[in-house]
């Protein structure tokens, strides 16, 4: 038997050891959040993947090092200005100068971060500085660094990206666990939700007030964040930021737009490359070549056997490694010559599209006011609903219960000949999408008549709900449908859609209508 006369000191090491163990395990290196890449990006050949990742990282940065790329129509926050020459006879220290601001220098003050955009300092090693003091009366900035003095006409930005930073902070607190760090709709909680959280990376948002070809306006995202999406796990963030005057909400809207742009940029660049330079694509191609060679070979052998000496011997199939090598060389050339242009075009395209979304011209504005919501209108709406022109019933069902015949079909995946494994409709993200049950009175995109009007007019983006506005249906027709659809939840209470009941309804109409 072990006997030891030592008391306290003997097991102090044991205890200390345990504590140290727990502490070292607990205080390990801080893991950094990552923007996850698309599967198709990860599938690219290493060089191609690097090209895409570099391009996207250059333009957007990483979660801990966000890049505010001024080409994008995002309010990154902060204010820009130009250094003014000192007034005549005025003598300023090297670290003080006057600034002409582009906007209002609200957030500028002690501690603000300053970035030189043009001029000698901008090209130097340290293009940043910290503001010590700002006098708004004389518009004088005092900097901490006493290095090189800026020249008049140099552009500077203060607090650049502060809104994006705030947006990211708010996003990580409130949105991340469903929508994921990269906005890929794949946060830790996402897999349990039905419907799945939105994946922003297609640049698509379902419920917008814009025309069917346009992106979502800032106001649309703000509406969704404020009021939530009933019938889904997207809750209302009406009181986000308490009483900060909508600062946090505006910031998170910008951050979501920015993530959407980042995702779309990545997607478009990958789509550009994945046709020729993806691992799985090359494997398929190699297999295809192998097969065609085998076919040609057997053909050739047959011909030789038959005595045909003229038969041409087929070229042997290229092995995967050969294909990869060839693709690699081609890729190198492509990356050097064409890719910068592709990046430029893609970013132009994305920036334009998002800029356009906030243009009033992209808004859906009905040409006529809502048609009076009476029995006649609802009946017209019902007939349209059942007509071959609109064919609403095929999905939403004859009674609006979301059980039209379309939900029994196998639908084709977009851009391919395969069908989905499950019956029924799917959205662009590949998730099953049952048509809305219109009798439940639950309106995901909002319950204002204009919201329902917009759904019919411009369709629901990324879903099989088509746009009827402008072409198929007149605005007054759409209002009739809106009136009919919005009466569906109350069918039992107000038998409006049934012609027999119309007189009764008319009797309750106020005089003069």
């Amino acid at each position, binding site marked *: 038997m072990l006997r030891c006369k030592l008391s306290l000191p003997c097991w102090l090491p044991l205890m200390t050891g345990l504590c140290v163990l727990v502490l070292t395990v607990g205080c390990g290196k*801080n893991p950094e959040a990552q923007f996850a890449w698309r599967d198709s990006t990860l599938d690219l050949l290493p060089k191609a993947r690097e090209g895409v990742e570099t391009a996207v990282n250059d333009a957007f940065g990483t*979660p801990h090092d966000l890049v505010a790329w001024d080409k994008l129509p995002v309010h990154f926050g902060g204010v820009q200005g130009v250094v003014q020459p000192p007034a005549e006879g005025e003598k300023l220290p090297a670290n003080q100068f006057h600034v002409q601001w582009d906007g209002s220098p609200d957030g500028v003050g002690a501690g603000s971060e300053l970035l030189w955009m043009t001029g000698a300092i901008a090209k130097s090693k340290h293009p940043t500085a910290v503001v010590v003091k700002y006098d708004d009366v004389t518009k004088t900035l005092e900097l901490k660094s006493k290095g090189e003095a800026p020249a008049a006409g140099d552009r500077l930005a203060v607090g650049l990206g502060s809104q994006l930073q705030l947006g990211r902070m708010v996003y990580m607190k409130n949105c991340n666990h469903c929508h994921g760090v990269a906005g890929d709709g794949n946060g830790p909680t996402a897999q349990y939700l*039905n419907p799945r959280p939105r994946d922003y990376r297609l640049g698509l948002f379902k419920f917008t007030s814009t025309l069917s070809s346009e992106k979502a306006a800032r106001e649309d995202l703000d509406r969704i964040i404020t009021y939530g999406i009933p019938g889904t796990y997207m809750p209302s963030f009406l009181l986000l930021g308490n009483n900060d005057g909508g600062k946090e909400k505006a910031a998170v809207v910008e951050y979501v737009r920015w993530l959407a742009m980042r995702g779309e940029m990545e997607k478009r660049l990958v789509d550009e490359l994945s046709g020729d330079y993806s691992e799985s694509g090359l494997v398929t191609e190699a297999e295809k070549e192998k097969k065609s060679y085998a076919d040609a070979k057997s053909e050739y052998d047959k011909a030789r056997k038959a005595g045909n000496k003229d038969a041409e011997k087929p070229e042997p199939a290229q092995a995967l490694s050969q294909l990869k090598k060839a693709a690699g060389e081609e890729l190198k050339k492509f990356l050097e010559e064409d890719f910068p242009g592709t990046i430029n075009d893609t970013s132009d395209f994305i920036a334009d599209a998002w800029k356009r979304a906030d243009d009033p011209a992209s808004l859906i504005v009905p040409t006529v006011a809502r048609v009076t919501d009476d029995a006649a209108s609802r009946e017209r709406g019902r007939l349209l609903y059942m007509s071959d022109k609109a064919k609403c019933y095929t999905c939403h069902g004859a009674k609006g219960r979301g059980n039209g015949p379309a939900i029994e079909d196998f639908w084709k995946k977009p851009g391919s000949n395969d069908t989905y494994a499950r019956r029924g409709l799917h959205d662009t993200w590949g998730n099953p999408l049952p048509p809305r049950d219109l009798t439940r009175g639950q309106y995901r995109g909002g319950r204002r008549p204009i919201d329902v009007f917009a759904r019919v007019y411009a369709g629901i983006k990324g879903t099989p709900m088509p746009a009827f506005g402008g072409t198929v249906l007149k605005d007054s027709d759409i209002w009739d449908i809106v009136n009919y659809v919005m009466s569906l939840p109350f069918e039992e209470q107000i038998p409006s859609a049934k012609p027999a009941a119309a007189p009764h309804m008319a009797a309750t109409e106020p005089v003069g209508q």
Partner: protein
Amino acid sequence: MSTVTPDVGHPGAGGHDHDSHGHHGHGHAEPSPLSLLWQLPTFSCDHKVIGLQFLITTLMMLMVGGALALGVRWQLAFPWERMPILGDTIFKADGGQIAPETYTMLVTMHASVMIFLVIIPILAGAFGNFLIPLQIGADDMAFPLLNALSYWFMWPAIACFAASFFFGGGPANGWTSYPLLSALPEASPASGMAQTLWLIGLTLIGVSSMMGSVNYMTTIINMRAPGMTLFRMPLTIWSMFITAILQAFALPVLTAAGFMLVADRTLGTCFFIPSGIVVNNAAPTIGGGQPLLWQHLFWFYSHPAVYIMLLPAMGMVSDMMACMSRKPIFGYKPMVYSLAAIAGLGFIVWGHHMFTSGMNPALGMTFMVSTILIALPSAVKTFNWLGTMWGGRIQFNAVMLNCIAFVSMFIVGGLSGIFMAAVPVDIYIHDTYFIVAHFHYVLFGATLFGCFGAIQFWFPKMFGRMMNDTLGKVHFVLTFLAFNCTFFPMHLLGVAGFPRRYADPYHFPYLEHLLPLNQFMTIAAIVMGFSQFLLLANFFGSMFFGKRCGRNPWNANGLEWSTPSPPGHGNFDVPPVCYHGPYEYSSPLSHDKDFLPQTEYVPLAQRQAVAQSGH
């Protein structure tokens, strides 16, 4: 008159610290100190081994539950920041920031582990098993095999709990598991397989407790030593007996409710599910059930369970306190009656957990009266403890300090209970941190401090060695201070309307300013968590390096102190006969020493002489 030791064969019974272990010349061989420890991995049916198995398992689970609690505290102090270990491993992609369902999982599993795998088994399982036969003078439990089974049924339960972590991130519906959250698999990530496994684990714990309680009742009724009348039983035995009765009557209800919920989840029954409920866009429920039924059934068990988690500690503290004050317990019979009253009233107060649930308001009134009245026996016990210490020669060792802490913390926990017993006030503080403060003061402040004391008090009986008193005091001081720093501010948080089970309370404007206070509490909680390593070090270190001791190192009266340390198989080398109550400390019947073992016979003439002299 010289000391009368009726049985010379008891080397240690006289309290003269005979160093007799290891010697084989005594007629009765003293077993080696670690003889019980080496039997731990065996399927032993010896009640002492089973008790020790329970004790060591629960100490391990205490660390698990504590770690889960630290996760909770971390999130409350540093919301959405990187959480060490858990965040680093599971949520690497999110920068170590945990998901909200992980927070609710931590809350749920902290409670489940602490209640079902620590407090209930450490009291009834560990101390109940170890002490009942020893204190009543029996050689083992009435049903030794059943006893072993009751321990080994813990493991499938632990396995179920452990396995549940791998489904949907672990059970996260609160330890109360209110339907529909727990009844509909779609309702939350944790409501799937994890919830089913949790319920199965709970049922297995119930089976384990049930086997124990049947055994305790039978043993206590049938196997007492000659002379051990009911009112000569130590209060530990009384409390274990009453606890066993509580368990036997309350547990079947929980088991039934658990089966009903499992049936709702897997077989499509609808005991708790009303009709037409759509969760997560799943098909509407068929329904016809009532969610409130679960609450009634659950609390019908779980309120008595609160006393299952408290009464044995009360009993043990009474034993230790009398010994360490060198004085008889004050008001032995009132102590027994108040134990019984708490148990009896405990069955008719469950509704106070449901004041805001929407049950019939008339029920609220009756439950309020019964709940407030249950404070009465608790108050009587507290006064009696104070009476016990009054005028005693208090030994301020680690055991006694833990017991004093028990009384002090129980007063806080009991008084805060009055607020929530009063329905109108409860409307406000229900489901706030006030409740959290209250039950931690009772379950940790009272029960666990009682357990810490009991571990150190009966450790010599388990291993024939003393635990280190200095280390025990350091552990006590750290734990006591950190405990109060962690949990006392929770009362104030509760008054400030700080709701329970919130992963991020600070985005509510009225709670924003409470973050610094929470950070203070978290630091205290971390200190408290790490202090428990001292306990472990003391516990395991003392097994090997502790000071050797004889049969009765504390000069205590109970029958267990007349056995060798540790007792061999069959416990008593001489069949004990009980002559007194258990608390005859400083009795005039024993002149030269301040205690009178229950086995010590005092001749009639001497008793008469003392009686005549005015005592």
